[in-house]
C-alpha cells in the first residue's frame, strides 16, 4: 500500500517528517483521518489538538500536541503547519501539569479569562500527547 509522506512543521523548526499509514488530526469541524490517496484537503486545526501519526510496520504511533495551524493534504503528502507543536516524547509532563493547574485556578477566579482557557486547552493537549490521563 502506498504510504503518506508526512511533515510536521512549526515556524521555527521542522518537528518531524517521515512516512506513515494514517494521520489523525482534529480540525474545527471534528476529527479527520487521512489515509493514502485521500483527496486534497486544507483544514484549520483546533487550538490544543492532538495529532496521531500511525507509522505502521511495527513502529509505535507518533503523538504530538498541536496548537492551531493547518493541515494540508495533496498527492499523498500531508503537511501539518502548526503554530506551535510538541512531540509527546518531548513534553515536560510536570511543567504541563503545573500549567494546567495554574490555568484552572485562574479560570475559577475569572470565568471569562480567555487566555487561561487557551492555556488550559494547550496544557491538556500536551498531557494527552505525552500519554497522561486528564479529566
Amino acid at each position, binding site marked *: 500500500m502506498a504510504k503518506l509522506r508526512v*511533515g510536521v*512543521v*512549526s*515556524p*521555527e*523548526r*521542522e518537528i518531524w*517528517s517521515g512516512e506513515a499509514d494514517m494521520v489523525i488530526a482534529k*480540525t*474545527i*469541524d471534528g476529527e*479527520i483521518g487521512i489515509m493514502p490517496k485521500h*483527496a*486534497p*484537503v*486544507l*483544514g*484549520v486545526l483546533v487550538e490544543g489538538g492532538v495529532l496521531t501519526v500511525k507509522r505502521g510496520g511495527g513502529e509505535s504511533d507518533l503523538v504530538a500536541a498541536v496548537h*492551531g*495551524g*493547518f*493541515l*494540508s493534504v*495533496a*498527492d499523498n503528502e500531508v*503537511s501539518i*503547519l502548526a*503554530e506551535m507543536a510538541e512531540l509527546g516524547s518531548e513534553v515536560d509532563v510536570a511543567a504541563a501539569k503545573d500549567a494546567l493547574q495554574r490555568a484552572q485556578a485562574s479560570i475559577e477566579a475569572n470565568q471569562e479569562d480567555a487566555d487561561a482557557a487557551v492555556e488550559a486547552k494547550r496544557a491538556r493537549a500536551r498531557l494527552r500527547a505525552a500519554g497522561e490521563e486528564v479529566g
Partner: protein
Amino acid sequence: MGAQLRLLRRRIKSVRSTAKITRAQELIASSRIVKAQQRMQAAVPYEREITRAVTGVVSNTSSVDHPLTVTKEQPTKAAVLIVTSDRGFCGGFNANILREAEALSTLLKGKGITPVPFVVGRKGIGWHSFRGREMGGKWDGFSDNPSYTHAKQIADTLIEAFSAEDGVDEIHIVSTGFVSMLTQEVAVKRVLPLVVEETPEKPDTPLPYFEFEPSAGAVLDSLLPRYVESRIFSALLQSAASEHASRRRAMKSATDNANELIRVFTMQMNQARQAEITQEISEIVGGANALADAAAGKE
C-alpha cells in the same frame, strides 16, 4: 622621554584596546551568523508549505473575495515596515535600509500615497524620532534574535491597521535579504494586498483542487494572517543573519585598520625613539667635547 614618543605610545595603546574590542565583536558576530543561518534554514519548511497552501487556495478559488487579497483602486495610505538593527557596529547596514525606505516613501508619495513607517530595531526608531516623524508602530530589543512571537505581534498590528476602516491600503516590507555570507541585499516587498509568490518547484504540474475544512472562507481567514506572519518572520530572520554578517565584515575591516594603524604608529615611535637617542648621544658627545675643550684650554 620625548613628548612625541609619549604621545605615540598612548595612541598605540588606545588603538590596541579598540582592536581588541572590534576583534571580539567580529568573533561574536561570526559565531552568531551560523546560528542565525540555521534558524533561517529551520524556518524554510514552514514557509514553503504555507506558501504552497496559500497558492493552492488562491489559485483554485478564483472567486475568492477576502479583505486581505483585495486591491483597492485608489490606495491612499501605505504601511512600510522597516527592519533595522538594535545595535550599530555593523557598517552601512542600517544606512542602506533607511535609504531604500526613503526611496520607497518618495515613490509612494509620487503616486499620491501617504507612507506610514512601522519600524523594527532601535536604530531605525532613533532615526525616525530624531527627524520627528510619526511611526505607526515600533518594536525593538530582538533584532539579532527574533522569535515567531515577535513576528506575530508585528503582523497583528499591521493586519489590524490594514483591516481598519480608515487604515492603510498596502503593506510593504523593507528589509535586508541574506543572499550569502558576503552579499546582503536590501529588498522591498509588498505583502498586502497579497501577491502570492509562486513556488519555484514543479511549475508545470497543476495545483491540486482542494477541499476545505470547514469552508474556503474560514480557511482563508486563518491562513492569510499566518502567511503574513510567516513572511514577516522570514524577513526578521534574514535581517538578523544579515546584521551579523555585516557586523562581522565591518568589525573585520575595523580590526585590520587598527592593526595597520598600530604598525604605522610603531614605526613612527621607533623613529622618534631613534631620533631621541641620537640626539641624546650627540648632546653627551657635545658636552664631553666641550668639557674636554675646557680642560684643554686650562692647561
